[in-house]
């Protein structure tokens, strides 16, 4: 019987002939923890009595969720991460480097065909490069730091086939939100979500990251896209040829579910408060007054997202508070070079340092109770941005930028 790309990668990583449902112990190619999860990982390693990591060149600690630190408590945890990281000689991406899920692919730590784990649920983003990548907890991460291995249940796969040309004003974010609306927040529980079809092929590697990033919002273990020439080009700029391997699903691979999407039918959508699967066409909520806009995060803080926002914000003045966070230092520098940052600042937006920004509700723009936020992030749970009484709409960078200019939710296709 044929195999899915996920079954092939986990077979290789575990030196076994693995199919969905099997439990395997897989070798890990790269492991990451961030400042919300690394401290517990370090504590678990200490409890376990492990004083040396398995391979310090394959481990990164990223300071992104609370960076720069908003409190003394966080600063102490950052200091503890730095001290431990330097002692072990692991890779440190300190304050200002960017969001972990941008840094790992961008800095060449995600080999296609490899297994990458992160102590962060959105680790599934890296499937966009044809790797098997999944989020794990801090103690599981301690096991990986100690041994370079972890057990996995090989997932069944949901195949999402997207065919057709995307209409104007419709983006990868609209595709994935539409998919989540159909599949529901638990509909892909434990599964790999494999995206295929000519629409996906037409998307950039970055836009595919947006698709894979949100696989976890339907319960998925990973999002994944088989590599093609675009993937290879992206990877070749970042790592040596012998470090990766290209896999794709067999034509007779077994899928537990299939979902077919005709891209030509798609419209701009938003996920309405307070569930990611509460997805509606923008036209249905048009006119909703907006108090804050956030453009950034591991879902939509990449250069092409900033370009889309800048196109809308050029020579305009924002109405609500607008916060823009480039996903990494590299993205920030590129945006500076292209004049995008100047456009944002002139429009009246606040440009924050690379990092997670206000997405997790700890700093850099906690909304007031009663405020409505349009955000390019991946979660709109009640309280997510720090206020239980704020209403969060998730949208594409285009829809978010238009909301910033209009002060209300507006169908981006009708703009200007």
């Amino acid at each position: 019987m044929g195999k899915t790309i996920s079954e092939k990668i986990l077979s290789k990583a575990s030196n076994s002939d693995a199919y969905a449902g099997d439990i395997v112990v897989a070798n890990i190619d790269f492991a990451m923890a961030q400042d919300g999860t690394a401290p517990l990982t370090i504590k678990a390693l200490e409890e376990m009595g492990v004083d040396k990591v398995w391979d310090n060149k394959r481990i990164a600690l990223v300071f992104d969720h609370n960076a720069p630190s908003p409190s003394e408590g966080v600063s102490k945890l950052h200091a503890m991460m730095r001290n431990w990281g330097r002692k072990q000689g692991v890779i440190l991406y300190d304050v200002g480097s960017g969001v972990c899920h941008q840094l790992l692919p961008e800095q060449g730590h995600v080999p296609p065909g490899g297994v990458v784990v992160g102590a962060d649920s959105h680790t599934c983003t890296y499937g966009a490069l044809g790797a098997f990548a999944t989020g794990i907890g801090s103690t599981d991460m301690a096991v990986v730091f100690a041994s370079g291995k972890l057990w996995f249940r090989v997932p069944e796969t949901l195949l999402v086939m997207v065919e057709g040309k995307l209409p104007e004003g419709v983006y990868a974010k609209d595709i994935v939100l539409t998919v989540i609306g159909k599949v529901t927040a638990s509909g892909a529980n434990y599964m790999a979500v494999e995206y295929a079809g000519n629409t996906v092929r037409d998307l950039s590697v970055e836009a595919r990251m947006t698709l894979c990033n949100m696989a976890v919002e339907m319960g998925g273990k990973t999002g994944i896209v088989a590599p093609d020439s675009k993937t290879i080009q992206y990877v070749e700029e970042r790592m040596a040829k012998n470090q990766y391997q290209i896999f794709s699903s067999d034509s007779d691979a077994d899928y537990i579910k299939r979902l077919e999407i005709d891209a030509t039918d798609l419209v701009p959508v938003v996920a309405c408060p307070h569930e990611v699967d509460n997805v509606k066409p923008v036209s249905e909520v048009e006119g909703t007054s907006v108090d804050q806009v956030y453009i950034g995060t591991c879902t939509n803080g990449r250069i092409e997202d900033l370009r889309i926002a800048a196109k809308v914000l050029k020579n305009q003045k924002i109405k609500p508070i607008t916060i823009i966070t480039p996903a990494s230092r590299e993205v920030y520098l590129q945006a500076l070079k292209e004049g995008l940052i100047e456009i944002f600042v002139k429009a009246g937006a606040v440009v924050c340092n690379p990092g997670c920004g206000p997405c997790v509700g700890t700093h850099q723009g906690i909304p007031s109770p009663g405020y409505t936020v349009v955000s390019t992030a991946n979660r709109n749970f009640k309280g997510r941005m720090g206020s239980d009484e704020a209403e969060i709409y998730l949208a594409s960078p285009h829809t978010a930028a238009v909301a910033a200019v209009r002060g209300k939710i507006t169908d981006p296709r009708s703009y200007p």
Partner: protein
Amino acid sequence: MIRGRVWKFPNDVNTDYIIPGKYKFKTLDMNELAKHAMEGIDPDFAKKVEKGDIIVAGKNFGMGSSREQAPLVLKYAGVSLVIAEDFARIFYRNAFNVGLPVLICREINEKVDQGDILEVDLRSGKIVNATKKVEISASPIPDFLLEMVEVGGLAEYYKKYRKFPWEKG
């Protein structure tokens, strides 16, 4: 044998409800964080819950973030067990890793009401609703996870045996 009083919760209880992000990044002091357990969905939960109590929930319990603080705060708040129709996968692994047992039981919500007293045998998955005098069966926990949770979690297991539960020999 676990015996405790039931607190019921709906489907899709996410990790931001279990421990809001605004608290979890600040400290590793779980007793402190446990004061905010379930605050996002039931602000008084940490005050009401007593040692040994059991959470019963619907589908997809623990969806969202990979934060291990979620099962940890429940454990430190005194929760002895979570029984749900099913779990989000990262939460499921994290719970066993930190020594909080969880059981999957599709019919739990039909057979149990808020405040009922349950007696649960983890090994067999047998649940007795002592208040209603009915028996319910949950899916049994895989052996290696049970061994892990019985010694208090994955770090404890490694400390005790110098190997991981899935390693042979």
